[in-house]
């Protein structure tokens, strides 16, 4: 789960981490009172859940009201890396001496949290990391042992900081680590972490992404996350499935993310076919989950056909088949559906699907199954 910058900054504040004063607005009409409260010069920041919005024009410094109104309209009308801007954070522009970087994430191979700091904070941090990796200092955490404040001071010393600023930066990083640990973080990042001309240390940006699998520990976030989704996606997520809408013409239901990706690769290799979605059922297939999968796939009305690629390992595919059959019957579907369903209870599954009018492909090669679908589509087009 990702948080908007202003939401992350709210969490920072709860932990006593200093952030600039800010106001969030949802519409043009709020910009003037916001600027009047915050003062000039101010920064307008698009609230979108992707990195690199600065380079994409999502951040603007304004020196007067007219400029603010204009910039505000421009940003609200922008799409940033495909995201509409629905909220804008207005903050006072500060006099900045130094921009640092601090990020906490997980090294997947080692299976350890890693704290990264650099004195080269700002929008070019990835470039710095690539060209001057020695400017990034890291502290790997042992998941079985607490990190103590002195270890963070030792890490931050590498940035050449002294006195009060050394302590303030170390304390902030200690608190970022607390957030990372308390909320099962995937990423907690501040870029830039700035030192102002009066030696204040503040987080100008704030990134928090937490582990969806740990959301049961934070019912308040779980609810928030579900509230951000539309209803059909919510139902799927609650049952452990994952859906991503794409631009193609073949609806897809797969059990397993790897299989889904391989299936998408294969579909794309057929001229004229492309996946309309990514859908991974997870390991808890029931008739109801399968109904929900069918419903969400059918929400896209550009489909030429549906391809179902499921295995009966942990999943009772014969149960899932009942859900598919029910949707076909209830909605009197006529769209061609090819299912490749193998593993435990495959015969039972085939029987149910065939009765419902689904074309079943009984061998294991996905390529052959999609070829079968292509043939059917071709026939249909002909007929």
């Amino acid at each position, binding site marked *: 789960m990702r948080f908007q910058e202003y939401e992350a900054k709210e969490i920072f504040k709860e932990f006593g981490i200093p952030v600039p004063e800010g106001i969030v607005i949802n519409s043009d009409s709020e910009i003037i009172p916001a600027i009047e409260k915050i003062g000039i010069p101010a920064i307008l920041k698009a609230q979108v859940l*992707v990195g690199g919005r600065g380079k994409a024009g999502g951040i603007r410094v304004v020196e007067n009201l007219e400029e603010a109104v204009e910039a505000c309209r421009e940003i609200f009308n922008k799409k940033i890396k495909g995201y509409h801007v629905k909220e804008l954070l207005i903050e006072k522009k500060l006099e900045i001496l130094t921009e640092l970087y601090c990020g906490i994430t997980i090294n*997947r191979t080692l299976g350890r949290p890693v704290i990264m700091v650099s004195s080269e904070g700002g929008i070019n941090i990835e470039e710095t990391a690539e060209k001057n990796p020695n400017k990034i200092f890291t502290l790997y955490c042992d998941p079985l042992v607490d990190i103590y404040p002195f270890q963070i001071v030792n890490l931050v010393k590498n940035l050449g900081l002294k006195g009060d600023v050394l302590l303030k930066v170390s304390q902030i990083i200690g608190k970022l680590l607390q957030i990372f640990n308390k909320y099962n973080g995937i*990423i907690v990042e501040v870029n830039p972490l700035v030192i102002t001309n009066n030696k204040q240390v503040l987080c100008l940006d704030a990134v928090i992404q937490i*582990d969806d*699998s740990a959301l049961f520990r934070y019912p308040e976030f779980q609810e928030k996350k579900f509230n951000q989704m539309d209803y059909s996606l919510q139902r799927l997520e609650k049952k452990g499935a994952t859906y991503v809408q794409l631009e193609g013409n073949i609806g897809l239901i797969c059990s397993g993310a790897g*299989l889904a990706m391989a299936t*998408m690769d294969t579909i794309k290799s057929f001229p004229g076919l492309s996946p309309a979605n990514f859908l991974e059922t997870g*390991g808890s297939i029931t008739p109801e989950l399968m109904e929900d999968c069918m419903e969400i796939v059918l929400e896209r009305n550009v489909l030429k056909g549906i391809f179902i690629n499921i295995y009966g*390992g942990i999943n009772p595919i014969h149960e899932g088949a009942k859900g598919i059959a029910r949707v076909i019957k209830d909605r009197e579907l006529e769209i061609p559906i090819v299912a490749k369903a193998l593993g435990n209870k495959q015969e039972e599954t085939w029987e149910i699907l065939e009765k419902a009018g689904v074309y079943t492909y009984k061998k*294991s090669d996905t390529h052959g199954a999609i070829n079968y679908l292509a043939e059917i589509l071709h026939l249909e087009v002909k007929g």
Partner: protein
Amino acid sequence: MSILLNKDTKVLVQGITGNIGKTQTEYMIKSGTKVVAGVTPGKGGEKVFGVPVFDTVLEATNNYEIDFSVLFVPARVAKDSVIEAIESGINKIALITEHTPVHDTMVMKAYAKKHNALLIGPTTPGIVVPGECKIGILPINMFCPGNVGIISRSGTLAYEVAANLCLVGIGQSTVIGMGADMVAGTNLVEILELFNLDNETKVVVLIGEVGGSQEEDAAAFIKNKMDKPVIAYIAGASVPSGQRMGHAGAIVEGGKGSAKSKIDTLNNAGVKVAMMLNEIPLLVKELLS
């Protein structure tokens, strides 16, 4: 021969009384696996398909010799259950459970390492020795005995690749799913090492996917230490990459993680990489003949 598992391996099932635990225990027993005991706290004294159930792993290990524990427990108790197995002296563990919090996985991984235990998973489908036995959820009708070792980060892709090999008459020595969670208890390299030492295995098929740097590490291992030919496939080459948040992920991965990085690195290590699933049987056949 096979790696990690054979028909004499004495298996404990943690979470044996749940729906999935029960069903899969039945499948395991039918596949030839020696399931000697089960554990579900609060259900001590019951039996599941003739297998005695205990409240704690310690009671199970006090009563039976256990070589391997396979877990079908809820995600929120996965960490506790894995550590219980390790603390009770079991040093091979497969965690089938999906949606385990990654911070819990990191603790389990560190704990297993500290105690020299092998933790496969979370979200592993398990291990199958075709024609002999299995632990986990792999449907055995997808597999057939032979000389190809399969290591896969994806569960269902492992089934698919094995079944496709069977279609052309190529069987498998051992098939093992690693689980594709953000952090895996055991990485690809550790299993490659085992296949490298296994006499029965002539060729290894490595099925990776985008994300992380396990495939890149595997490439380095194959280049430097592997005596057997390896065929690889990376799922997700044509999948649009998700929007990244922040920079931390990019910095920590240092350019690894994409399908392109993985495929290039594997190619450079002398591994034949199948660009599509259906190329795998052909490539394996070439190597075996």
